[in-house]
Structures are given as C-alpha cells and as structure tokens.
C-alpha cells in the first residue's frame, strides 16, 4: 500500500493569500505538493456549497484563505463573511461525517510567503493523521 497522500483544495483570495502563495514560490520556500489552489477575488466569494462539493468529491482537506482580520480585505469585509460562513459550515460538517479539522480558514497577507508554506505543511501533517476523507473511504461519493 502506498502512503496516504492527501489532496487539499485551496480557495485563495487574489489580493493577499494568492499573492502570499506566489511569494512563497518566489522565495523558494518548499512545502509538500498536496494543495491545488483555486483563485477567487475575495474569500467572501467562497460559497459553503463549493466547500461541500469539494468534500463530496473526495477532497481530504479544504483551505480557505483571505486577507487578515479585521480590515485587510480588499473589499472591506469579505473576510468577515468568510469567517462567519466557514465557522457555521464547520459545525455542519460533522453531520456529513467529516471532521471539522479538515476545513481551515487562514489569513495570509501578500508578504507572508513563509506563513503560507507553514500552514500547508501543518495542514498536510494534520490531515495525514486524520486519514483519507471518510466520504471517499466509504465510497459514498459521486465522483
């Protein structure tokens, strides 16, 4: 059996977090290749349905990242909206049989390439402990 290699989907806001992820690259900070980034303009764009959809399709983890609270969001308060939505969704996840730790909300600024890399390293480690997405293991998915 090969070692469990989690797949993480990241929804990153264009202005801070996506730029932070780029900075990690420019600074050649290495992190494990488990995340696939989807760029959105603001973390406030992330509909809980996207996250659920990702989990249903077998994602082992989902990262939502945006500009720092309280006031770094490029669109005034999208990060607060993301915060509320993700917090609520975490409560709901359990009902679907998904550990809430698989979903993370983080704030990464454009100058925090190292922070982005650390978050990914950390998340991969955590999720490896949790094992594969239970929906995937249970075969209940619609992939």
């Amino acid at each position, binding site marked *: 059996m090969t070692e469990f290699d989690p797949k993480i989907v990241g929804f990153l806001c264009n202005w801070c977090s*996506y730029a932070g992820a780029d900075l*990690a*690259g420019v600074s050649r900070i290495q992190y494990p290749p488990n995340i696939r980034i989807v760029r959105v*303009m603001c973390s406030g764009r992330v509909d809980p349905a996207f996250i659920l959809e*990702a989990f249903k*399709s077998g994602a082992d983890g989902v990262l939502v990242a945006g500009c720092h609270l309280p006031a770094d969001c*490029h*669109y*005034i*308060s999208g990060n607060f909206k993301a915060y509320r939505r993700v917090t609520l969704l975490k409560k709901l996840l359990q009902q679907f049989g998904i550990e809430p730790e698989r979903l993370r909300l983080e704030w990464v600024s454009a100058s925090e390439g190292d922070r982005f890399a650390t978050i990914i390293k950390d998340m991969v480690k955590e999720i490896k402990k949790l094992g594969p997405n239970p929906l995937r293991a249970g075969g209940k998915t619609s992939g």
Partner: protein
Amino acid sequence: MADGKIGAVLVVGGGVAGVQAALDIADSGFKVYLIDRAPSIGGVMAQLDKTFPTNDCSMCILAPKLVEAGRQPNITLITNAEVTELSGKAGNFEVRIRKQSRYINEEKCNGCGLCAQKCPVEAVDAYNRGLNDRSAIYIEYPQAVPLKYMIDREKCIGCGICQEICRAEAVEYEQEDTETTLKIGSIILAPGFTSFDPRLKTEYGYGRFQNVVTSIEFERILNASGPYGGLILRPSEGEIPRKIAFIQCVGSRDAQLGNNYCSAACCMYSIKEAIIAKEHVPIELECTIFYMDIRAYGKEFDAYYNRAMEEHGVRFVRSRVADVGEDPLTSNLFVHYVEDGEPKTEEFGMVVLSVGMRPPENVEKLAEVLGIGLNRYEFCQTDTFSPIETSKPGIFVCGAFAAPKDIPESVAQASGAAAKAIAVIASERGKLITVKEYPPERDVSREEPRIGVFICHCGINIGGIVNVPEVVEHAKKLPDVVYAEENLYTCSQDTQVRIREKIRELNLNRVIVGACTPRTHEPLFRETLREQGLNTYLFEMANIRDQCSWVHMHEPERATEKAKDLVRSVVAKARLLEPLKKPVTSVIPVGLVIGGGVSGMTTALELARQGFEVHLVERAKELGGHLRHIYYLLGSENPQEMLRSIIEDVSENERIHVHLNTAIVDVKGYVGNFTTIIRSGGNEKQIEHGIIVVATGATEYEPTEYLYGIDSRVLTQRELEERLAKGQFNAKTVVMIQCVGSRNEERPNCSRICCSQAIKNALKIKELSPETEVYVLYKDIRTYGFKEDYYREAADKGVLFIRYDDEHKPRVTRENGKLMVLAWAPILKTWVPVEPDILALSVPAVPNANNEHLARMLKVPLTKDGFFLEAHMKLRPLDFATDGIFLCGLAHWPKPIEESISQACGAATRAATILSKKTLEVEGIVAHVDEDLCVGCGLCITLCPYSAIEKDETGIARVQEVLCKGCGTCGASCPKRAITMQQFTDAQIVAQGLAVLRGVVHG
C-alpha cells in the same frame, strides 16, 4: 504646435530603464523613438538569470515589458543605431540618427530562424559572453525584441545560403547604413553601463585562467538559455565545480584604477548568484564570497543576506583577495588572501569576479554630441536636488548612467525621467500619437469551446522540475482541448505571434497558459487575444511555477502530477468562460498626494507641470517633512535653501491646493474616480480625484540603547547635525555607533541612509574642528555609488573606522559622570576604551505609526517591517497592486533625497498615465443577476459592501456595474443562486475545484 514644441521624445538606450521611460511616455500621449546600439532591446537585464532579493526570473519579468514596447503603436524602435548630431533646444530638437545595416530587411524578416539553422559559419556568441558559439546570421537571444535577424558581416563568408532559403526574401547583402533626422521635444538618456574589464586586474588571472569568469558570464552559465543549458560547468573541461569563490569589488572601490566609487549592485548580485548556484548543483557546492563590506542596503536586502548565510550556507570572508593562481594540472585556482592579519591560501574549482559598472562605451562622444556634462568618473553629471537633469535643458538621464544602481531604482528613475521629459512638451499631449486599432471581436457565443494550451518551460524554472512534455500530453487529452504545445518562454514576443497564429489557424476560442502567476502576466496574454479578435476574458492561467515548480523543487514527479492537475482544473474552468465587456469610466483629472515632504511636494509639482490639478494633504502644520531637519549634505548644496524654494514653487502653483494640519478620514471609489474626505480642525471636506500618491515619509527611530535619553551627551545623528549646523558643537572626542536599532532581531534590515549620514557629520566635524577625534563603530560601511568618495575622504581626514560584529557590540557605560565606550578591536582582540564628549547614534528611519491605518483605508499592503509594499519589487516599484494608487519616498523604504526625488517624479509619471486619459477601461468582472431566478429577497443588497445592488421597478436585484468591484460575496450567499460573479461563477469555480480532485475518487 503653437509654441513650436514637438510632442515626441527620444529615448537613448533600450535597457529596462529606457523601456520603462518609453512605455510611460507613450502611455501618457506622446510619441517615442527608442534607439539602441544593439540589435535588440533588453539591455543587461536580458542577460541576467535571476534578480535579487526575490529570485524572480529576470527574463520572465522583463519579457512582458519588452513585448509591450514592441507592440505599443507610439513607440518606434530603432536598433543598431546611435545619435550623431543634435541641434535645436528644449521643446524642439532635431537629432540625426545613424542606423547600422543589419543586412536584413526588417520589414520582411519574420524571425523564423531558418537562416541561422543553415548558416555554416560559427561566430562568438557575445550575448552569452563568448562562452559558446552562434551562427553568423543571428538574433541575440530567443525572446529578442524586435525579433529580426542580423548578419555579422565580419564573420559572414557570403556563401548565400541564407539568402537562398529565406522565403521572406529578407536577406540583403548590399544593404547600407542609413541616416535619419528626427524632430523631438526632449531626450532621455538611458545608455546603461559597461562591465569593468577584469583583464585590467591582472592579479586575478582573468583571460589567463579559464575557470576565472566574470559575474555576468556566471549569470549566463546559470541561465537555461546560457552556454551550458543551465548547468554549472567549468569552462576548462565541463566538470561541475565543488567550490566557487566570488571576489567582490573587482574594478570598484579601487583607487589605483581611479574607480573609487562603489558599483552599488555587486554585493547583492553575488549573494544571489551564490544562492542560485547552490540551488542548481544537486551535490554539495560550497560558495564563498570575499568582500570588504556587504552592501545590502536596499528593501529587504539584509533579510536576503541573512538567508544566504543561515539557510543556504553561503560563506562570507571579509578580505580583499590579493591574487589568484592556477594549478596547471587540475585547472583549479588558488585564492590568496589575508584574514585577521594572517595570510591564507585556499583552492577553488571556479572563481567569479564581481565586476563593477563602468560608464557606457563611447560616453565622451555621446556627451560631446549632446553637449552634456560628465562627472569625474564619466558618468552623467547630476545634482542631489536634480538627480534626473543633465547639464543641458531638455535632456534627462536615468538608470546606471546617472550612477551605478540596481533594477528597481533604474525603473523608478526612468519613470521620473519620463515626468521631466513630458513636462517640457506637456502642451503637445496627444498630438503625434495614433490610437491602437484592434480587429473586431469575434462572436464565439455559438461556438463549442476550442481550447489551446501553451505550457511554459520558463527556461529551467518550470522545465527543470516539472516534466513539461508530459503536461502537454496530458492537456491534449482533456475535453475541448484542440491544441497544446510547450514553449521555452511563453511570454516572449515570438510566442505571442505563435499564439495568434494558432488562434487563427485552429479557430481557438479559449486560451490557457500554464506558466507563472496571473498576477503579473495575465495582462500580456489578454492583449494577445485581443489583437487576434478574441475577447480578453476567454483566457486563464495555470500557475505551475510560483505555486508548483518553485515550491516543490525536490519532488519533480509529484510536482509534475500537480502541474497536470492545475492545468486540468483551468481547462475545466475555461470550458465555461464567457466573453465579458469592460466598462468604460471617465477619469477625474485631479491628483491626491498624501504627505507634504520633499517627495509629496515633488510629485505634486510634477503633476501640476503636466497640467493636472493636485490636492496635497499634509498632517503637520507646515510643509517639508524630514527635509526640515537636514542642514547640509555630503555635496555642496544647501538643503534648507532648496526646501524653501520647493515650498515656494508649491505655494505659488495655482494648480496645487495645499491642505495643512489635515488628516485623511475616508477614501472611496476606484481608479479614475476616487472620493476622499479630509478633515482639518473640525471641518470635513470632500475631494474628487482620479489617483492617489502615498508619500507619507517615515519617522526617526527613538533609541532605547546606549543611555540615550538618560545621558545628554548621547545624541542621534540628526541631533548632532542640528548642533553642528547651529554652531553649538564643542567636543574633543566623538564616537558614532552605526546600526543602532537596525540590522537586529527586531528590525533585520538596513536603513540605507545612516552610513552616509554619519560620514556627513564626521566630515562636518573635521571641517569645523579638525582636532576633534572621530570614531565610527560600524558593521559594514554602506556608502554605495559615488558616496564612497566621502568615505575615503573621511578616512583620509583621520576619521577612525572600527568594525564590530554582533558578538562584539560596543558597550557604553557611565561612571562618575564619565561616559565610556568600549570598542572591540578585532586585530588586537581586545576592548579599547574611548571617552567621548559626544556619542552619536545612527538610528534607522522607521515606518510611521499611522501606516497601518492608511494602508487599510487604501486597501494596500505593508511589508513585514511596516513600510508600504509595492506591486512588484523589481519592475513596479512605484505602483500598488490596486490600480490608481502609487507610492514614493521614505514611505516605500529609507532613502537619500536624490532617490526620493527620482521616485517622486516617477510616481507623478505613473499617475499621469491615468490622469491623461479621458476615459479608462476598468475591470469587467462584475456581478450578474439572472432575472428569472431572482426572487427579490434582498440578501445580496444588504451584503454588498459597496451598495452596488438595488431593486429595480419589478422588485428584483439589479447590479450597478460601475460601483461593483467584483468581490463576489453576493454570489456566495444567494439562496436562489440567481446572482453570480462573472469570470468566477459558481459553475466555473466548482468545475475548477472538482477537476483537481479527479482521480481521487473511484466512483
């Protein structure tokens, strides 16, 4: 041309500075002639592999600018050319240009390269610094702009093969040199520099020992399109070296050679080369840098220097190398040097000479033809308060020709020169330009998606890790992909031509580029689509470099898998892309400049000179900022007089509205249309404007170290300066301590100005009181550029410089009222006591406490240190990522007056590219309501942070497109999924997100 002025500018030199100036000027409504002596533009930057301190790939960040210059209809490129005559005066010059023949008809050559493949002659490849060969018919490098071949007639044997096979019939053996006369209003000089010829330092063996190379040659060796394909090999026999020595200051800081100045960029490029070399060589490679002072004085440079030591294990030896010898058997090199008073010898596999910058070739002739003055090193003569003006009105200078400097400073100064050149001919704006015509947009609404995919090797940045051919093969199999190919650099001009060809040939209606980040390169590719009649929104990028190959350098296979996933995911999104319209908005031709120091005032003046109204907001009760505390300079100018005259100019200019004692309360709007509320006393006022320039300056750090504030003999340099200026100085012994509050844990970076400030004060002391003993305790003396002269002068006048390191920081005590400084003497290995009458602390400029608040209001980022963070450290030093907001001066990073002024002029230019337009296309990504689905619940209306949504007569939601900024938060909450964000629709995001997961589930 009422007053005989001509709305055109001549830019001499097509390096990064010249190109930036040309783009800014053309973008502001003037005609530009950009001439270069070389067959293509790009200058030295096009030869670099990476750039510091970000390790960005040099060609990647330069190529978009070159391509843009190549396709800007108001820039005429004249290559292989030089100026031979000049007449007329500012506003109305006539210039003669001699263009050397290429023996190729530029109109006809399409750059296919068949000729070079067939050419039987081998010639030395100068672009790769003679490390390999090229054919006699050639282009300088694959991404050359213009992409036109040239025949090296010295090498050509006239066999006629190229002429025979050229289908375009472009080869013209008989072509002759041509001369033309141009009429222009002003001139910008950006001829760059030449590298010092290390043969003049015979002791280092360059030219005798094969494995001694220059830093530029080494740069080519590191590069994927270099002589060894990006492998680090010894020129002698092609082996990988185990140990490389870098020798600093070759041809710089060398009084014997008469080159006393510091070349300003070599410390950093050597650190970069050492880091990149270590990344390239999989086996253990040792890199050692021999230096006198490490001059890492720029934005976040010290952090880079620290990383080189700590993370990459680059070794630094403080010593001037005496000479280099060679072992004839192994071709290894012996480096002889003295460390801590002891002579040493060490063997290396390769030696890299960090060669300094010299004035450009034939500089005397250029100066003579144009009638401009040169300084004693034959760089262009300028002054502190007019760093861009040459001695002749109407002719301006930027880049390394003004003084040795790095890329961002060249770019900022180039924009600055553009401001000056435009100001001469401001009345002629728009008179000589043509508007770019695009083909009509193809209607793709009835077409099935036909996707073309272009995957970039990015030299070896991607291709060295990710298996690009495999990714291409994967892409070919994806639904709706009808074409996929790989490119060495997808952003180069020839690839733009290819993309257009493929769109036409295969009727593509969606294009995907797998390369770097859309944040820097999306505009370039969108323009390519537009030129081919495709809507610019039918484009997507897969970020397989910054977010893949660069962060998974040691896992090539998994990186390849990830790259495939990323390409697959944007293909999934691209299938659902729809064409969008870019709304057009009007521009309020008024500027808002925040900060009334020398930077802010200069920006305001330059904008006013271009004919724009400006609001200048200063929170203090008077103008002047930091400059108010400067009483004298290293040079002879009187700063207080200059300040008075600038303030006078500002106050007298009727286009500038000065608001003192005023705070910014609120900023709303977007590029072209901002609304700002300012408050003064109890009164609030509203200003409408099109752009914002942040010039808020910095604050002097208040030290807590070394008894400052406790003992009145302990001063900051600024306080000492005031005493010296006001005749209140009286001391027999003065000690200065450098880097107090900087280059430490809390503030790891250098504050750039303190070394010069200390030397300035030391020289003033020696002038006023030659008997006074002055000790400067320092870590590195960072008097870069021509400031090095003053360092030498101070040493000559008896100022004692004593180095300390972090283990031996100076100690200061007070006993029985006596102030005592203990300084570590490294050679004696003991602490030496000094009893100063004055202890002056060199403290850094630190960010204003208010920065955070302002950054939030403007929605712009700060660096970790708390200074404002520009859009791109190398190539967009004066722009924020948010359109319409710019920065300059100390708010950006500590810097001396002349650099602040250059930046301030540059910020004015950048702002004027917007203010000069009547209308502006803005981002077309706005929310869209599906009227059939909307039930009028109003949730989106309450959520929208910009009140951009309202209910229409029928009670359903309607988006006001100019107000919508495209965040998409409405779309994330609509219970009926009736409102969505274009280009980021629910379906697109889900498709993209799920495509990466394919293969995870075996459903």
